[in-house]
Structures are given as C-alpha cells and as structure tokens.
C-alpha cells in the first residue's frame, strides 16, 4: 500500500515535472519572422546581401545600404526591381524572379520595406550628402569637357589616374601615399566597364560615407589636398558622370559586351 503510494507520487512528479525539464523543445515551428520587421529583413540581408554590401550594410565592397539619404531617394519600386532582377553587366545578381532559389516577390517587397524603414530613417535637421539632387542617371546628359574641369578641381586628389601623379604620393617611399583618402582611379577603363552609369551617378551623388567619400554636398579636396567646401550642383554631377563615362572605351579600344558571370 505504502509502496504503491510512493510509486504513484513519484510518477506524478515525473510526469508533472516533465514540462520544466530543460530538454523540452521551445514552441515550434519557430515563429516565422516577417521580412519587413527589423529582424526579418536583417536576416535576409545577412544571407543574401552582406557578402557584397557589407555586414550591417556598411563597409562592403559594394555600395553601402545603411545610407538613409540613398534609401529615401531611390523609389522603393526601383530598389525592388534592382534586387529582383539584378543589374545585367554588373556584379549585382538577381535575387528574385527566375534566379536559382529566388526570393518570392512578396517577401522581397517586405524586405525592401524593412530595409528602408530601418536603415532609411533620416535624422531631422541633418544635411543630406545628396543635397536632394535627382538620383536617376539620364543617358546622354552632361558635358564631359565641363566635367573634366570639375574633376580636376575636386576629385583628382583622391582619384588620381596614376598614383604617382597624386600630390599625396610619398616620393621617399615608393608605392605609398601619405593620405588614406587617396584611393585610386575612377577613370580606369576596366573599372568603368564593370559598373553601370547609374553606379557612377549614385557614387557622385551619395558618396560612400563608410569609406570617407563625400556625396554631392562635399567637402572635396583641391589637387593639393586642401578642403574645398563648395558643393556640386545637379549639372556638375551630370558633367562628372559624362566625363567618367567618356573613358570607358578608351583603352584598350575594343569594347567588351560579354559578362562572364556564372
């Protein structure tokens, strides 16, 4: 009788206590995080975008996405289309549509929403690097010769065609520069063949704050490295882009159309 009672008690404790054991799995399926919440969009970003656009949207090889000015200026539909279809001829792959293992359109819409809502928040009163200049490149716009003059005045210090031509080139130690802002040519024909005109315009308008490159608002550097506060206007942006584009097929002369992406 007593033994039976003890057994019963033991079983009750065992069965009743089961719910408190550490091995009991958490509620499952783990709640699916909607893509337009911060966590949801960041998870997709980490999986699909971070490789090129950088951890947390900055300091990747490709343009940073944690850029409120940029995200606010580009229409969501454009962001969606670029992400879904990629940019042919550049290294931006398609992530939706008929890509291998595509992101469904509805998820992609929410992803864009999540990204703009999270990283695209402009702080009130903060100056915009783009000065509100239009984001879109208009083919044929701008004047290359005017662009050349602007480039000489504001860009060439950091983007010399040849490192040796830079004012920051360290003659005592060949191959080195004294200023970390000096990074190299943007009129390299090979570089220009790998990027779209829109990429050039976006780079001029929005800059790359994560790497220290200013947007249209400046400040820039004069050829001898002094600060130039005067910003670019919309016309100057178009001229600069036209100037850079003019180098694309310069050397070697044969233009390449083929894109060798897998």
């Amino acid at each position: 009788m007593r033994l039976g009672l003890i057994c019963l008690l033991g079983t009750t404790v065992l069965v009743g206590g089961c719910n408190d054991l550490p091995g009991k799995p958490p509620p499952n399926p783990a709640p699916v995080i909607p893509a337009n919440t911060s966590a949801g969009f960041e998870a997709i970003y980490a999986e699909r975008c971070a490789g090129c656009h950088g951890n947390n949207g900055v300091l990747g090889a490709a343009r940073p996405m944690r850029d409120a000015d940029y995200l606010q200026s580009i229409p969501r539909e454009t962001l969606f289309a670029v992400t879904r279809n990629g940019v042919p001829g550049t290294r931006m792959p398609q992530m939706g549509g008929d890509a291998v293992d595509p992101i469904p359109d509805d998820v992609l819409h929410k992803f864009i929403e999540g990204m703009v809502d999270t990283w695209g928040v402009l702080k009130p009163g903060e100056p915009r690097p783009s000065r509100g200049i239009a984001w879109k490149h208009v083919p044929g716009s701008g004047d290359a010769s005017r662009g050349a003059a602007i480039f000489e005045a504001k860009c060439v210090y950091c983007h010399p065609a040849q490192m040796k031509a830079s004012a920051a080139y360290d003659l005592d130690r060949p191959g080195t520069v004294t200023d970390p802002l000096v990074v190299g040519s943007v009129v390299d024909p090979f570089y220009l063949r790998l990027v779209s005109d829109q990429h050039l315009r976006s780079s001029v308008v929005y800059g790359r704050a994560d790497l220290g490159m200013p947007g249209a608002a400046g400040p820039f550097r004069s050829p001898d490295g002094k600060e130039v506060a005067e910003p670019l206007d919309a016309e100057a942006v178009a001229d600069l882009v036209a100037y850079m584009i003019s180098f694309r097929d310069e050397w070697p002369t044969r233009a390449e159309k083929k894109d060798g992406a897998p």
Partner: protein
Amino acid sequence: MRMPRFLSRSAAMIDDRTGLITATQGAMYHRVPRNAKWWYVFGSATLMFFIIQLVTGVLLTTLYVPSAAEAYSSLVYIDEKVPGGWMLRALHGWSSNAMCVMMLIHMTQVFLHGTYKYPRELTWVAGTLLCLTTLALAFTGQVMRWDSNAYWGLGIGAAIVDRAPFIGNWLRAIVLGGPDISGATLSRFFALHVFILPGAAIALIGLHLMLVLKNGISEMPKPGAPVEPETYREEYHARIKKTGVPFFPDAARRDMVFCGAMLIVLIGIAAWFGPFGPGPVPDPTIIEVSPKPDTLFLWIFAVLALLPPNTETFLLLAGPPVIIGFLAALPFISPTGERAPSRRPLSVVILVAIVTALGVLTVLGEYEPWSPRMRAWTSDTTPVEYVKHRSPLELQGALQLQYAQCRNCHSIGGIGGKRGPALDAVATRLSWDQLVRQIQQGGGNMPAYGKNLSSAEVEALVAFLSTLDDQAQPALIPGAMEAQPARDESPTVADASAAP
C-alpha cells in the same frame, strides 16, 4: 518462495508443448567464463538501446504521419501537444545515437580481443551486417524528421549514388522514388525505417545471439594461448565446465548494472538536451539554414570535402564495398592464432588508426565547411580591412570574387572553402602575371576561368588579389606585389596612424 501449484502446472504444460521455458532456462543458466568481466557488457547495452528504440519507435509510429505534407507538423504536434511526446522523441533519437556508440565500442572490444577468430567467425559477420543495419536505421531515421537537414542528407546521398557509372540515374530513382526528393521518397524511407530495417535487425540480432549461445562467450584473451581449431572447442568446454559460472545471475548482474546506469544516463541526456530537430522546414523563404548531418555521419561529409576531386567518384563508390568487404572477411583472413592484443600489434595499429581517423574527421566535419556553402557568395562578407583603402577597380575585383563564387574553394579572412589555398597572402606568392595566368588557365586543382571572365573582370580580380599581402608581408618570390606596368597600384598608406 514456492510457486503456487496451478502456476507451476501451467508452466510445465506450456514447456511441454513449446519447449520455450527450457530454452530460456538454457540460455539463462548457460555457463560463461569466470573472467568475463566488465569488458563484456557493451553488447548487452547495445541490445538494451535497441529495445528502447523498438518501444519508443512503435509508440512514435502511432503519432507520426508519414506524408510529405504532414510529417513536419506531426512532429511539432508530438513535441507540443502530446504529453511527454517530446521526451519520447528525445529518447528515440538519443538511444539511436547511444546504440551506435555502444555498437562501435562493442565491435572495438571484439576486434581488440580477437574474439572473431574460430569458431565465432559467423557471429562477427552477423555483427557486421547488424552494424550496417543500425547505421542505415540511423540515416533513415534522420530522414523521418523531414526538415531541411533531412533534405540535405538525402540530397547528398542521392548525389553519391548518382555517380555510379551507367546505373547511377536508375539507382537514384530507386532511392528517391523518382528523379527528385518528393513525397514518394518519404514513404520509401518510412517503409525502410519502420518495417524493413527493424525486421532485418531483429532477425540478425536473433542470429547473433543464437551464435553467441552456440559457441559460448569467449574468454579473456591470454598471451601465448593461440586459437587452434583442432583443439579449441574441447579445451573451451572443459574449462567452462570446471571454472565457468552460470550467465544468470553471475554475469547478467554486471550487464544489468551497466545497462541500468546507461539507461539513467540516456534519460538524463534526453531530458536535458531534448529531441533532435525538427530543424527548419525546407523552404526557400525561411532563411538562416545551415544544414548538417547528424554527428554519426559528419565524418563522411568531411571525407567528401577533403577528397581530391579527381578521385572522389572512384573512392565514393569503391570505398564502402571495400571497407565492408574487409570487415566481413576479417575472421576469414585471420581465423586462428593469438588473440591477445599484446601479440597482435598490427591489429592494434589498425584500430588506433581507424579510431583516430574517424575522430579527426568527425571533428573536421563539425568545423570545416565540408561541402560548398551555397550562400557563401552572398553571405560571407569581404573582410573590412580588405575594403578600406582600395581603389574602385579593386573593389570591383572584390565583388567579382564574391560573384564568381571563388570562395566556394578559397577563403579570405578565414571564411570560405578549403579546397584551394587561402587568398589572404596570395599577392606575396604570385606576381600580377602569374595571377592572370592562374585565373585564365587554371592549374593544380583549379579550373580555367579564361572563357568565363571578361578581361575587365580578370583585371579587377587581379587588382584586388594583388592587394592581399597579409598585412604587408614581404614578397616571397621576385616580382610578386609589383603592379602591372602602366596600371594603377594599390596605394599603401604610409602613416598607418593617419588612417580613419
């Protein structure tokens, strides 16, 4: 305590008609060597875990729905709604692992003591078949979870059979029940997991135990007492008669103590760590999946990752039959002679080598990217220090490195494949021209990418690679790290403290 009269009479009647009780008593009280001590408990523990598998497995089949649409949700139902259901799954999963581990320990002990020699050759062969059955049960059981890991395991398994010459496609269709992983695949593996393999296991265990009873439990090996088929049986029976003890209770006592302890450990582990999976649903919209096989099979995937590509197919197809054939043939290769490990150094060396290799490969499987990470090119970032102070062309090269999925085989910043060399210091080893040639023409294990990349893409890639000097290590060969004439070079910032 005496049995009531009607009970003993019923027992006598049943025994008279069936012979069951006599047979059981024969098995219970058969004499075993006195020195058969704790070394011999592992086989019994393996059997106990199998019985736990059977009991929990049967209970699980009453709850599990073997259909592709509902398998996953039925697991969730078992975990959440069925009282103690998660514990049932945890016990089933962990006892499966425990059974495999016990089985391997048992096999090791048998191998080490040379127990497979005359007259127990067929006991060993039956044991080898049981080992395969058990591993097959573990693998098919993993498929039952029908989560992304199951998909992954199946996909790799299918890819392996697919490589068989001529019959690969046909074999794949047989394994998967069609060209692809589908509902038919689950039904097929369900049938294997709950009917065919357990049936085979029960039959083989019966055979194995029958043979153990027939030939007796082996004595501890004694150096200088080799197995001679002419005299072995007589000597064994004489010794057992003189010094042996009845299996029950003398030897069974140790088995029971060990099995009891193992059972407690099993329940503890199951309660603490819970059931395996189910992992994420295999669904492209659910992200952050890093599929991985169960620990037992990790070593296979490490092997897959480490095999040189041109030998892979051959070794994958020829390896398992050779290994299994060797295991099964072992008692016929060496049926007589010394049993003591101290007199069989070669066997000990082989055993140590196998155990070490499996252990190391399992650890590698845990840590190494044992198969290409399909998301590596979009998820593994370029290290920030390789992005800073790079020219626009070099940044495009960094993008090309991601885009062409170079990191499936090469790592930078410690992330990426291990098949090719890490690229962090590639600029110190190869000059600009050598980099171009390596990319365009391939060489070593690397395919030629000349036809797949435009000259601008190669240029950008080489421009980026030629900046990877592992924090300004000196060049290892003449000409390395020198920019191509007339091309721009990566600026090195002279004063590092001035960097932002």
